[in-house]
């Protein structure tokens, strides 16, 4: 699907041909071709694990490719490290700003190439020029202040100014807008347009489709370590772009009628929701998200990477600081926002990053399972070994956790068994609401099917479940309805017969409303294509006993 390009090599400032790279036997890049023309803004998109970061790191000398070549300005180059690449004119601005926070802004701008006067740094000239440069980037500050006193957006501008000043011919921007305010994004765009005028090429990595369409000329889509498409940005349908990113075949777009009400909608709307989150806002991440989950219901949370799904779940349990919003469990608000308070109220979350946020690696299976329940298993502060063993045995049996013994360290278990241990940690608390963030990512096919069956079973027992999954099939088949997030806002809800892959792809591709509504209640939310969709527990299809093919196994 890679477009043949007639331009001679000299017309490409950066070119990568047949590059492969694998880590410990896992292919991160497979025969990737990529080319960048002078003065173009080239979008590089793909989901997690698609290989974007690896490609950037190969181009900038962080990694060496196992096979293939990197050409820069018409010559084959083998950059030993990013500094080498930078000296040649290939600058990278990473997500986390890579500057020296304690040094002054001017010093950061001129780090390593300070203007000199008799061998000493000419501070006055440096400050003067730094101020002038930054003003042209829309940053007017005292350049003698330490960099860290700037906002993240302004810091990014300094990084950008620095990159451009080092006579860069190519600037690679990895998620440059993730910490920017809308106004700052505008400034960034005007800087990028200026770069384009000066024939500097930009590689623009972002998950925000609106930005790609606003600023990029061409796009390269990656998936599973391969390039699946390269072409002009204009004329590429959003839907097509998304289906290429997610690897779903684009069939004919089924137009949804605007009156597809679900006739049985009152059956779930009846009764009090087990979880009601209202107007949750997390700075830069989540903007006024509201959600209801009823007992026995599985509500999916759909969206692309960076849409704010995990952040929403974390905001619900109080693991992220919220600027506004409230969470009610069975109609009672959770008083203060902390994971401990949420757990007391019966809301638990299976985190996305099992290793960092989930397991206690050097403790045993027994201790990991009983960790959150310790106070309930103790009398006068002493842990009752009998009660602990009872619960551990119960859940090791029920979830079929395979460990040599309850004393085995949890870090020695497989990913699937670790995940089951974490599930057991929560289930032994008898929670009312279960938030699952990518519950089957990176676990083997067998465990995946078991976890999926368990989700079904738990909902059947009356648990309210919020399911986040990048696996579309899992999301659609596992959920009663799916709330779609985009850029931290609820943009639609799918239920009943609209809950299909196609419907979800449509929702993800939908252009946002000009002024995002302040999060209407789920019942009255305008769903995709103007329809109102609702569903109920009986609609739910049961998950297949054997899970779908494992395509996300340890891509990270």
């Amino acid at each position, binding site marked *: 699907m890679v477009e043949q390009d007639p331009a001679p090599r000299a017309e490409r400032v950066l070119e990568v041909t047949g590059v492969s790279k694998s880590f410990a036997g896992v292919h991160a890049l497979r025969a990737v071709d990529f080319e960048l023309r002078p003065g173009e803004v080239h979008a590089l998109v793909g989901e997690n694990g698609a290989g974007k970061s690896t490609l950037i790191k190969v181009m900038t000398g962080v990694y060496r490719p196992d096979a293939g070549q990197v050409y820069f300005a018409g010559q084959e180059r083998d950059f030993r490290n990013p500094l080498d690449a930078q000296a040649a004119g290939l600058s990278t601005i990473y997500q986390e700003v890579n500057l020296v926070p304690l040094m002054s802004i001017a010093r950061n701008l001129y780090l390593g190439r300070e203007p000199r006067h008799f061998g000493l740094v000419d501070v006055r000239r440096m400050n003067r020029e730094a101020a002038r440069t930054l003003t042209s980037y829309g940053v007017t500050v005292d350049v003698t202040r330490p960099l860290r006193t700037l906002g993240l957006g302004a810091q990014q501008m300094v990084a950008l100014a620095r990159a451009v000043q080092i006579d860069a011919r190519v600037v690679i921007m990895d998620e440059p807008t993730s910490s920017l305010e809308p106004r700052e994004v505008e400034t960034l765009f005007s800087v990028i347009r200026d770069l384009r005028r000066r024939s500097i090429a930009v590689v623009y990595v972002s998950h925000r489709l609106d930005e790609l369409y606003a600023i990029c000329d061409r796009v390269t889509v990656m998936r599973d370590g391969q390039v699946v498409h390269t072409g002009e940005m204009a004329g590429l349908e959003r839907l097509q772009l998304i289906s290429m990113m997610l690897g779903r075949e684009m069939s004919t777009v089924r137009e949804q009628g605007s009156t597809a009400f679900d006739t049985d909608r009152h059956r779930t709307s009846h009764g009090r929701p087990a979880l009601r989150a209202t107007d949750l806002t997390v700075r830069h991440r989540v903007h006024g998200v509201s959600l209801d989950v009823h007992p026995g219901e599985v509500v999916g949370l759909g969206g692309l990477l960076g849409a704010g799904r995990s952040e929403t779940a974390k905001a619900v349990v109080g693991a992220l600081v919220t600027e506004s919003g409230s969470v009610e469990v069975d109609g009672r608000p959770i008083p203060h926002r902390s994971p401990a308070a*949420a757990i007391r109220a019966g809301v638990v979350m299976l985190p996305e990053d099992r290793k960092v946020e989930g*397991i206690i690696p*050097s403790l045993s299976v027994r*201790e990991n399972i009983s*960790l959150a329940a*310790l106070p309930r298993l103790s009398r006068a502060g002493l842990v009752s070994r009998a009660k602990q063993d009872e619960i551990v045995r119960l859940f090791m049996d029920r979830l079929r956790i395979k460990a040599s013994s309850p004393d085995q360290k949890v870090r020695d278990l497989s990913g699937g068994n670790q995940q089951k241990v974490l599930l057991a940690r929560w289930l032994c608390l008898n929670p009312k609401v279960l938030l699952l963030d990518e519950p089957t990512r990176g676990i083997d096919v067998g465990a995946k099917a078991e976890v999926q069956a368990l989700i079904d079973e738990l909902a059947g027992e009356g648990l309210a479940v919020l399911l986040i999954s990048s696996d579309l099939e899992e999301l659609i088949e596992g959920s009663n309805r799916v709330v779609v997030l985009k850029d931290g806002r609820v943009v639609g809800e799918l239920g009943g017969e609209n809950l299909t892959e196609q419907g979800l792809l449509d929702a993800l591709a939908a252009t946002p409303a000009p002024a995002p509504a302040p999060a209407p209640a789920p019942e009255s939310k305008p769903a995709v294509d103007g329809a109102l969709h609702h569903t109920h527990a009986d609609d739910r299809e049961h998950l297949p006993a054997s899970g779908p093919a494992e395509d996300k196994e340890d891509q990270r």
Partner: protein
Amino acid sequence: MSADAWASSVRDRDRLLHLLQEYGVYAALTLLFAVAVGLDTSFLSVSNVRIQLFQVAPTLLVALGMALVIGTEGIDLSVGAVIALSAAIVPLYLGYGLPLAMAIALLLGAVCGAVGGAMVALTRIQPIVATLSLMIGVRGLAELFNGDSAKPVTDSALLALGSDSFAGVPLMAWIAAGCALLAGLVVRRTTFGRQLVAIGDNRQASRLSGLPVRRVLIAVYVLSGVLAALAGVMIVGHGAEADPANQGLTMELSAITAVVVGGTPLSGGRVRVLGTVAGAHFMQLIAAVLTQHNVPASYTQIIEAAIICFAVYASQERGTR
């Protein structure tokens, strides 16, 4: 074939290393004891053993608290200064009797620990910085209370605590043994102990699992402060003088050494109480043997340094790759 041999030799090496990590300190302690007795049988004499016990008891108390702190991936550098503060305070209140004087000293130790713990848990200052500032400030405070000169102590109850014995074993050793037993119980069997270890191993996951992270961290530093204050009272009783300018100097380092030699990893997530007991005795024994055989103090220090390096090297966790 050769690959198999290589793999099995790697496995053997791993197993050996594992054994070394788990039981090395006990083996080393036994070996050292045997060597000491072999070189000079009078090492086994009652009076010598008693001397060793008197000297190891305060270090062990402080090391127990340190082991708990290190288990949370922290460190407490203020313990030596807390000893000095305790030494400065006790003589001021001895007129009201030992129990009250001791209670006040322990209370102040708890307050110091709470301040350090609060800095670590609430403001997230790094433990080494938080307790370093505390170490400087508290020692200054101690000298403020006491003045520069050492003061003799004559209270009979305190002197008895410092030098009397029960069943032939010094009271100080009994107290230290009791505290070690309690520490073992706390770590193994209590909610607090298990939460402490979990927080040390993965603080983020512990927080998300609803553990009272702040409360546990503060409590751990409070315990460390109280144990250090108790050690301070003992040191004053044993030496029959209060000398805040000198007592407890470099005690934090001895305690850390005992914990590390005992096999508790500095990366947190594990507390080895019995190992700490063995580690404290080992370091005491090394110093005693070398001194008794007239090895100059400078060599003793170099040898101790080598032991610490080896202990840290051996206790490093090796990934199963």
